[in-house]
């Protein structure tokens, strides 16, 4: 067969340049059939699709090779790239065999080449008819014939693995020895080693189900939940800092607690992911389901002054899109952000359809240096929630009482003339202006002012007014405008502006801060359409209230503007006035639950910020709220002005009607005032409670969806046409019955027809256990990714996983119960020769444990480990100065101060992650810095790793604690001390030779320390852990021995 084909090929080429010898030879060595997905496409995708693939804009010669119809079509040159079954007529064949610089494919300037075997595969495939298939991972998993033919009670994993081994003439390895097996399953499922009792019990047990019983125990343990959470942290790019620029503090750990709890209860994986992608959109979401959505707020954020908000906001949207695609679908979707995907069937349009699911969050591109930014969820305890609910119900009652009382009083109030000076706390007629002795500005004789420049005194509405021309004219008045949520207040002034500029607001008066102060305070301003706006802000873009007039004010004309607020944290109780009359207004936001007292940057402590007039305190945003025009007669009251009063401010000669006077009189009624006071007091109380409640960043849909556009070359400022939310059709068309929101997306991900989700997930957990996925490129199931080593096994497992109700622990159990898992990891010459990479699993894999597991093992072995589950991140030992050396913008993360006590010994899952300066010992062992979703870690071997295990105080202290522990167990027996340390660290007994080596080490070290008492003191003084009272020289020597074991292979390697 092979020979005849070779003959055929030679014949075909007989009258052309002959088939090169190497290609002919390769052709002869090919198996009978070449598969498009497994043999041909990897070559085409890697070497040809860049110019002849899905990306329309990059396509050369109008030739597309990823679709059969196009690949066999007649080209402009009248040639056909591929003529199925005809090598002679397929110009592709000529081009790949050519030696001519202008003919050879791939062209020399692509720096890509085809090996002889590659050419042979393409030739054979064309000769066989050039059959195309959909990419393997996009074909739904196939049911295999396992159930029909497998031996009774053979683990399916073994069935499929053994099949492949047979083909390669390899035998599976014998079962692992019990000690190694026990440690392996402990470490794989929990990331912690078995203790001495576990080991002894297991060894001595004659129960045939002893292993299964251990597995069952481990799978329900909190240690297992922590191990699974550790893996998920990389996927979810979890960190305790923002990551960009200042890289300041954020608090997302309650989400990590959610993950721990989910794994603890073995929440079905579909539910686990659905809650994280769309928990807020579930019917009547629970508090936990909303916390779960913090998953998609874990991305990095910037607070860099001057950043362009939209650019970064869209970057966050892109991050969610890319993370979802990588984590759940195993696709490199981000490749389609700037152009159609060059390899996978995902168009740029589809990329933006997918991103539309994540583009509907009321969030900011530029936030502040430290803190959580909206949308946030308040994490009140149940007791606190109850307290708030109680106050709330009282408030409702009191408000209803207030209305009733008002009605009953309406005809009983004594009519009085309004007193426009009552409650007037700031009044600036703006009639005089001058400089103080110290150069400061004095307005109306009030020296509480400062101004970088000096606004001009001009003719005003009433006498003089102040003219604001440039931004430095703004005025700052100390001691004015200091209000909190529960204070009633009103502001009124005359304005005359000639400015109206797109994207630019004009602040009239206010004290709201900048991004590093959460914009906290209040402001009264004109927007860029000159509508009148009032905001009371705790934190943008979440906790504030905002009311806006519907009408715009005319330019170059005196306008009287005012607003009143009654101190009840309710936008319904804000009234804007224009020209003395209540304005037609709308509420843009009515969610103010915390205080509005101004704070400073950095520590974010309360400061009495001067009231700004004619400019905002915002900076960094390109929009500083500069007012241009004249202002006059600013009045601030510490009470709600009634309509008649505002009208009188507008038109002092106004003759009040009976009704107006009655309204005024009513507002003065003592009973009503008392009741109002009570309401405000309760608001104050409620606010004070809210102020103590911590928050977490979560997802929240905006009521009016934001439009999503395709962005030219992915650029934020080049939007093209609008798209609606959707998913790539090549994976699975989006069911029209599904809601086009994140919840619909989650349902699509877990649809029975989705070919990827289950495969990708099964593969990820396979990777966690075996160190490598069945698909090696666990992060790429696309055309450029690796092919599965055991495709049928992957399909079987993914169907099993889905049909089990996405039962993760059942999957893990199935894996570890297999012989393949339980076989020995010992590497033979034959293994190295036939399968050095262990693709076929003739032995259990060996690899270095991840960073966290190495540290946790040392802590557990030494007895230092503190098994507290969940809670805020902790700060174990770390070399000094690493944080402050990098930056000083974040106040909260300026210096790394190690914790004391228990927090030094928590599992590494809880170690604080500051993205721009992650814990070095973790990074050295390849822990990612969580900038992006990571599915696969590198596994390197470097001298720095040796230095960590030898010198990092954490490991030195653990060595000493382990020595103390061993000595305590066997006070008089050095040999037993050593063997105890050995088994605690490695999970197995040291053999005779190892014991001899370590005993010799002990002797040598003891001699050295015996000669230098202060050296012992120094070594044993490392770390906080209390020193025991035994002999220091002995302990020093034993510490060095323990550290030597800690540095030996079996401690940090899966065997």
């Amino acid at each position, binding site marked *: 067969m092979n020979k005849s084909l070779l003959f055929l090929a030679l014949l075909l080429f007989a009258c052309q340049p002959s088939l090169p010898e190497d290609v002919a030879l390769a052709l002869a060595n090919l198996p009978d059939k070449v598969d498009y997905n497994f043999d041909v496409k990897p070559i085409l995708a890697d070497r040809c699709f860049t110019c002849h693939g899905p990306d329309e804009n990059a396509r050369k010669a109008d030739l597309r090779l990823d679709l059969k119809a196009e690949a066999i079509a007649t080209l402009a040159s009248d040639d056909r790239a591929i003529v199925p079954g005809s090598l002679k007529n397929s110009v592709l064949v000529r081009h790949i065999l050519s030696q001519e610089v202008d003919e050879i494919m791939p062209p020399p300037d692509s*720096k*890509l080449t085809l090996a002889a075997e590659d050419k042979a595969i393409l030739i054979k495939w064309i000769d066989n008819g050039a059959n195309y298939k959909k990419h393997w991972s996009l074909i739904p998993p196939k049911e295999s014939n396992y159930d029909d033919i497998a031996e009774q009670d053979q683990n399916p994993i073994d069935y499929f693995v053994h099949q492949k081994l047979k083909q390669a003439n390899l035998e599976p390895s014998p079962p692992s020895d019990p000690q190694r097996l026990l440690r392996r399953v402990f470490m794989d499922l929990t990331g912690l080693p078995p203790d001495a009792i576990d080991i002894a019990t297991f060894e001595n047990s004659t129960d045939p189900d002893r292993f299964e019983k251990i597995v069952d125990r481990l799978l329900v343990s909190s240690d297992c939940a922590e191990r699974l959470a550790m893996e998920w942290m990389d996927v979810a790019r979890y960190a305790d800092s923002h990551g*960009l620029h200042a*890289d300041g503090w954020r608090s997302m750990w309650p989400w990590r607690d959610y993950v721990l709890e989910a794994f603890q209860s073995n929440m079905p994986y579909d539910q686990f992911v659905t809650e994280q992608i769309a928990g807020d959109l579930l019917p009547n979401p629970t508090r936990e389901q909303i916390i779960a959505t913090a998953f998609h707020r874990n991305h990095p954020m910037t607070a*860099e*002054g*001057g950043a362009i908000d939209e650019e970064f906001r869209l970057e966050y949207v892109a991050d969610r899109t890319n993370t979802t695609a*990588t984590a759940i679908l195993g696709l*490199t979707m981000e490749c389609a952000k700037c152009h159609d995907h*060059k390899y996978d069937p995902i168009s740029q349009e589809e990329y933006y359809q997918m991103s539309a699911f994540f583009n509907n969050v009321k969030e900011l591109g530029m936030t502040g240096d430290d803190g959580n930014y909206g949308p946030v969820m308040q994490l009140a305890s149940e007791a606190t929630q109850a307290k708030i609910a109680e106050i709330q119900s009282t408030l409702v009652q009191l408000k209803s009482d207030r209305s009733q009382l008002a009605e009953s009083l309406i005809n009983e109030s004594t009519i009085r003339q309004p007193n426009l000076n009552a409650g007037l706390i700031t009044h600036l007629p703006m009639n005089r202006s001058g400089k103080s002795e110290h150069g400061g500005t004095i307005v109306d004789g009030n020296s509480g002012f400062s101004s*970088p420049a000096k606004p001009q005194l001009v003719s005003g509405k009433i006498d003089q007014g102040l003219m604001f021309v*440039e931004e*430095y004219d703004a005025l700052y008045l100390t001691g004015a405008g200091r209000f909190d949520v529960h204070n009633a207040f009103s502001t009124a002034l005359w304005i005359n502006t000639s400015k109206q500029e797109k994207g630019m607001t004009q602040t009239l008066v206010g004290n709201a801060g900048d991004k590093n102060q959460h914009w906290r305070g209040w402001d009264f301003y004109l927007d860029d359409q000159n509508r009148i706006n009032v905001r009371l802000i705790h934190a943008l873009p979440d906790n504030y209230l905002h009311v806006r007039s519907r009408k715009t004010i005319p330019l170059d004309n005196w306008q009287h503007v005012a607003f009143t607020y009654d101190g009840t944290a309710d936008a319904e109780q804000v009234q804007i006035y224009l020209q003395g009359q209540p304005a037609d207004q709308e509420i843009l936001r009515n969610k103010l639950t915390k205080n509005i007292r101004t704070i400073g940057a950095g520590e974010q402590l309360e400061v009495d910020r001067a009231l700004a007039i004619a400019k905002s305190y915002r900076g960094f945003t*390109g*929009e*500083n709220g500069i007012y241009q025009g004249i202002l006059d007669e600013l009045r601030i009251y510490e009470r709600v002005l009634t309509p008649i009063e505002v009208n009188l401010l507008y038109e002092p000669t106004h003759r009040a009607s009976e009704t107006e006077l009655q309204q005024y009189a009513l507002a003065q009624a003592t009973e009503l005032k008392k009741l109002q006071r009570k309401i405000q007091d309760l608001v104050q109380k409620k606010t004070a409670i809210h102020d103590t409640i911590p928050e977490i960043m979560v997802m929240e849909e905006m009521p009016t969806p934001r439009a999503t556009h395709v962005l030219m070359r992915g650029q934020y400022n080049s939007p093209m046409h609008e798209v609606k939310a959707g998913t790539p059709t090549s994976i699975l068309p989006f069911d029209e019955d599904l809601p086009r929101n994140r919840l619909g997306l989650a349902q699509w991900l877990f649809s029975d027809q989705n070919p990827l989700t289950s495969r990708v997930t099964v593969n990820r957990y396979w990777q966690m256990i075996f160190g490598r996925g069945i698909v090696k*490129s666990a992060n790429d199931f696309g*055309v*450029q*990714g690796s092919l599965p080593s055991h495709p049928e096994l992957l399909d079987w497992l993914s169907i099993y996983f889905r049909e089990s109700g996405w039962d993760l622990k059942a999957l893990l159990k199935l894996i570890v119960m297999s012989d393949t898992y339980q076989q020995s*990891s010992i*590497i*033979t*010459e034959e293994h*190295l020769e036939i399968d050095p990479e262990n693709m076929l699993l003739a032995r259990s894999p*060996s690899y*270095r444990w991840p960073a966290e597991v190495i540290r946790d093992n040392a802590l557990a072995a030494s007895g230092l480990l503190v098994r507290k589950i969940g809670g805020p991140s902790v700060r174990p030992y770390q070399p000094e*100065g690493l944080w402050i*050396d*990098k*930056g000083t*913008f974040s106040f909260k993360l300026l210096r790394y101060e190690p914790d004391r006590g228990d927090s030094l010994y928590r599992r590494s899952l809880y170690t604080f992650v500051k993205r*721009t300066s992650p814990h070095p010992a973790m*990074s*050295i062992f390849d822990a990612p810095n969580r900038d*992006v979703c990571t599915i696969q870690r*590198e*596994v*390197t*071997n*470097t001298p*720095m790793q*040796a*230095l960590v295990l*030898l*010198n990092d105080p954490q490991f*030195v202290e653990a060595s000493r604690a382990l020595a103390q522990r061993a000595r305590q167990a066997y006070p008089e027996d050095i040999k037993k001390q050593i063997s105890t340390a050995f088994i605690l660290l490695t999970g197995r007994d040291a053999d005779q*030779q190892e014991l001899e080596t*370590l005993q010799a*080490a002990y002797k040598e*070290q003891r001699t050295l320390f015996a000669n230098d008492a202060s050296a*012992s*003191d*120094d*070594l044993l003084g*490392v770390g906080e852990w209390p020193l025991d009272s035994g002999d220091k020289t002995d302990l*020093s020597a034993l510490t*060095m021995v323990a550290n*030597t074991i800690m540095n030996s*292979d079996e401690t940090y390697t899966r065997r």
Partner: protein
Amino acid sequence: MSLCNHTNSFYSRRDFLTRGSLGLGAAALGMLSNPAKLLANSGQLPAKAKRVIYLFQSGAPSQLDLFDYKPLLQKMHGEELPPSIRGETRLTGMSAGQSSFPLVGTPFQFAKHGQAGASVSELMPHTAKIVDQLCFVKSMYTEAINHDPAVTFLLSGSQFPGRPSMGAWLSYGLGSDNENLPAFVVLTTKDKTGQPLYSRSWGSGFLPSEHQGAQFRSGKNPVLYLENPPGVSPQSRRGQLDRLQQLQAHQHGTVGDPEILARMAQYEMAYRMQTSVPEVMDVSDEPDHVYEMYGEDSRKPGTFAANCLLARRLAEKGVRFIQLFHQGWDQHGNLPKAIKVQCKETDQASAALVKDLKQRGMLEDTLVIWGGEFGRTNYSQGRLTDDNFGRDHHPGCFTLWMAGGGTKPGITHGETDDFGYGIRSRGVHVHDFQATVLNLLGIDHEELTYKFQGRRFRLTDVHGHVVKDIMA
């Protein structure tokens, strides 16, 4: 951070060889401890530079007050930036909201220096003396408008985190010439404030972590975890390692994993580093005249000057890529005073480094680069007063200089317009700059690739043209 060559990352090495299209057979694989070196030796490009010392000026120095002299700005001082010049360029949120954009002429004196007559301001007297060794690029431009994305773009080719840094690429591509020192060393000036540094600037991104830059810090523990724990003497450590090797050899005999041998080698390297790093950091053997050349600061560990001197020592020892980070150039306000301090800290030592390398015959194959992440505006950010002003970020043009390593000495490449706002000729995009640096090291920037998540990544993304004009 990790150091030196490795013998472990089987997958990535294989990726590099078999997918990187170098055409090497798998047979070569097992023998390579440092495959990447092949790149330099594969004869694709002649390498002019063997190593790089990159004096990174974090925060972005004002080209208009240092090198790019614009008399027109002095003439029009205080006048508005003409809208025709500003055009549609985007401004940062820090100055975009200003109601006016007054032009600022530099308050500093400029003079022409050297045979080439290069303009240098009075703030850089030492640099002025070596201009004939320097190759100024006045037409640098970038795409990012803020520090974090701009630094990340310049040093990794992408504005957003996740890619390997320039030094990591070089470590990956060229390996180290000294197996006892890392290929990529980072030195930061201590006690500076200003724009933050990010470990990703010397991170390895998706490359194996051993290619991360190793930060050498001033003080007694220059590399993290390098020093033995207190009380552990050299003999104690040596004895421990000998016994450890015995254990490992035994383990290898039992489980047969070649990885154990690789790790044993790493332990020996770690041990050697414990000597080699303190040796190179110990500058006490430098003669007085060297300190005089680098300036008084060079006697104070952790200063920029001391780091320049260290950079030379590391270069002598064969470190491939040495990057200094000096913060504090971000003069949004108070520029006239603040820039003087910055220049005082950097000018003499930068010039001394070039002279020193020249005297030692090392300048030929050492590429020195001096510059920041973008330029600064020709208009004042904030209020322009008689004695004070600031300049905002300006991605449209900036100046950097290079010396040695195959660059043409004594030239100026590219030109900005009379307003110092746009580029008049021969613009050099960040990706062009990166391509050129790689080229000087003998690397075709399109060939130094790494396949990750289905795509071949490069330092230059999918762009970049080598600037041949600046090459000797």
